[in-house]
């Protein structure tokens, strides 16, 4: 029979003066000005005070990991190996586990006979233990306990004192934990969200990620834009259920997995199926919703796969909005047998597409249909004059519920309207070539140019651009310009760079020249001190 006493709740009527004294002494460690210290350091300072105040030999703080329902030793005094060895106690078990689960102080006069899980407590020769829960706003965030090497019968007064200190410490720990977690999550988010959206000729991207109003709630939302091996452009928006570091780290895994499966050459439907298998296999008790779209630039064919994600909004060139890409399967990680399918839509020139996470449309005390309706209206009316991006314009019109504790990610894709001119400034990197070719193909297709002529122009422009890229030694952020003009009689393209033309460069460049001349009707090269311009012309029709 464990030698243990149940302890009554602390008596409220006690010496206030003494309390004040204790708290004064304690202020130093819970002072917000110490917030620059790491949580570990604050806790160890705190424990030093605790042992002094209570006259104990050892002290420890274990914090609850709510994801796994375990208490993890975060700071210790006299029993430092607790932290070093990463002691973990399941909620509800052992000395600390029961304090947290039952949310009450527990004193043990003789450890020898008690249910102690942690071998370090025994090894250290601790005889008596007193522990109290760390409670903040009704949540148990951990346990603080003190121990003595000589047997000691803890009095109600000791309990009251330790609880007093624990209450004050709990607040400080909670704050420190929040800012620590927020800082970590923000770093994660910054690392994971694309720094710059890719340059795809004929498309304009804008995106936003907004952390939740209360900082700690950020975490699981992301978006991504990248090119598929077959040249299609992938748009991805996802939302991992849950908040904080745990959600953000699952998000990181899912986000990389999307790219990895895609890079292996799997089509979007297969990628989504594999992601589902992955999440289930990970056994992280995490689900995620995901919208995965792939746009064939030349034809405007848009494939949409949705794992429990809200539908995207498309705005047609005439200004009407509708929802596309309704969920074709449950969220990822829920159903091992889930079967996802793809739906095909058309994304015409002049249209706009918005992918987003639920934080954009959800409001307290409102059904989601109202939020979706509001979003559709916002997208319909969002004007993007004056340099405002579509993502910003939509956000401005939706008027987020700022009290909502959810983060928001949105990704807007605008297809530039049909025009006789196409002017592009591109990074001087070979990676831009594949989407350049398709962007030109899409533009020419919209003008009704036949497939063979589209191919010829796209490849010739690509050759001239490869030259421009090769010239662009020097600054890493060099760019080159492509200007295309269409008339029913001809397509004229100018590719200009600021480098010097090297006619006897690599021999494939000579071959590139041959190809340009074979594909186009006229090829002219203007070299000046400022750079090189290649003028390509192809006659159309007849």
């Amino acid at each position, binding site marked *: 029979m464990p030698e243990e006493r149940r302890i009554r709740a602390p008596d409220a009527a006690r010496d206030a003066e003494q309390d004040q004294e204790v708290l004064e002494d304690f202020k130093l460690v819970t002072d917000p000005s110490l917030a620059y210290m790491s949580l570990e350091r604050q806790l160890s300072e705190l424990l030093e005070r605790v042992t002094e105040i209570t006259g104990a030999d050892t002290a420890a703080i274990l914090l609850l990991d709510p994801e796994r329902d375990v208490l993890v030793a975060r700071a210790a005094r006299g029993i430092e190996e607790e932290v070093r060895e990463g002691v973990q106690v399941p909620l509800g078990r052992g000395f600390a586990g029961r304090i947290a689960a039952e949310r009450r102080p527990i004193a043990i006069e003789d450890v020898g006979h008690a249910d102690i899980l942690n071998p370090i407590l025994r090894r250290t020769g601790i005889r008596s233990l007193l522990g109290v829960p760390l409670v903040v706003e009704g949540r148990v965030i951990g346990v603080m306990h003190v121990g003595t090497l000589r047997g000691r019968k803890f009095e109600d007064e000791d309990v009251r004192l330790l609880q007093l200190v624990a209450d004050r410490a709990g607040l400080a720990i909670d704050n420190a934990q929040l800012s620590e977690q927020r800082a970590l999550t923000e770093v994660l988010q910054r690392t994971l969200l694309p720094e710059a959206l890719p340059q795809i000729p004929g498309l304009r991207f804008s995106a936003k990620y907004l952390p939740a109003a209360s900082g700690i709630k950020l975490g699981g939302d992301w978006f991504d834009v990248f090119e598929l*091996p*077959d*040249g299609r452009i992938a748009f991805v928006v996802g939302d991992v259920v849950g908040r904080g570091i745990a959600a953000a780290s699952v998000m990181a895994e899912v986000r990389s997995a999307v790219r990895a499966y895609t*890079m292996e*050459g799997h089509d979007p439907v297969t990628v989504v199926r594999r992601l589902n298998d992955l999440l289930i296999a990970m056994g992280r008790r995490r689900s995620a919703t995901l919208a995965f779209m792939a746009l064939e630039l030349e034809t405007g064919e848009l494939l949409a796969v949705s794992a429990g994600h809200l539908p995207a909004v498309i705005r047609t060139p005439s200004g009407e909005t509708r929802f596309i890409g309704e969920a074709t399967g449950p969220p990822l990680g829920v159903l091992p047998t889930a079967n996802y399918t793809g739906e095909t839509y058309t994304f015409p020139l002049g249209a706009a597409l918005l992918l987003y996470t639920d934080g954009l449309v959800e409001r307290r005390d409102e059904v989601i249909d109202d939020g979706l309706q509001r979003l559709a209206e916002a997208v319909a009316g969002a004007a993007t004059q004056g340099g405002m991006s579509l993502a910003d314009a939509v956000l401005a019109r939706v008027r987020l519920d700022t009290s909502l504790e959810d983060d928001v990610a949105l990704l807007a894709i605008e297809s530039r309207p049909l025009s006789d001119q196409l002017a592009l400034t591109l990074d001087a*990197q*070979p*990676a831009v*070539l*594949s989407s350049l*070719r398709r962007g030109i193909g899409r533009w020419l297709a919209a003008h009704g140019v036949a*497939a*063979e002529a589209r*191919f010829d122009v*796209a*490849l010739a422009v*690509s*050759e001239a651009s*490869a030259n421009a*890229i*090769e010239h662009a030694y020097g600054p890493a952020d060099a760019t080159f310009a492509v200007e295309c003009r269409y008339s029913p009689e001809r397509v004229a393209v100018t590719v200009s760079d600021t480098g010097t033309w090297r006619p006897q460069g*690599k*021999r*494939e*460049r000579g*071959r*590139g020249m*041959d*190809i340009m001349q*074979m*594909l186009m009707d006229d090829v002219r090269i203007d070299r000046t001190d400022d750079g090189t311009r290649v003028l390509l012309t192809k006659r159309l029709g007849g």
Partner: protein
Amino acid sequence: LRGLELEDSDGVPVARLPADVDAANAESIGEVIAASFSHDSPGVIADLTATRYLDSTGIDMLFRLGERMATRRQSLHLVVPEEAPVRRILEIVSMSDIVAIHPDVTSALGAVRGDGAPTPAS
């Protein structure tokens, strides 16, 4: 390497090239293919069925690969469907002077086995 798939068809390496072979990836693709064939393989097949755009860098890579294999008495075979736009480019640069071009993998495999060392009768 993105979109490049290597397979072995009864001792004949078959490399399926991605949709785009250009200045961004041609050199690496050439290296991967060159590393894939062994001395006892009579030839290598580069399958361009999925390839939509092949630029001069890609063409140069194929030429060099063909030359390199010829010095080892091996042969490079390209698979390009009749109607593929890539075929026009290969014609412009007279690729067929150096490398055999086939409409599908089956005929390419037949050609590789045919022009390899005679297989002992079993």
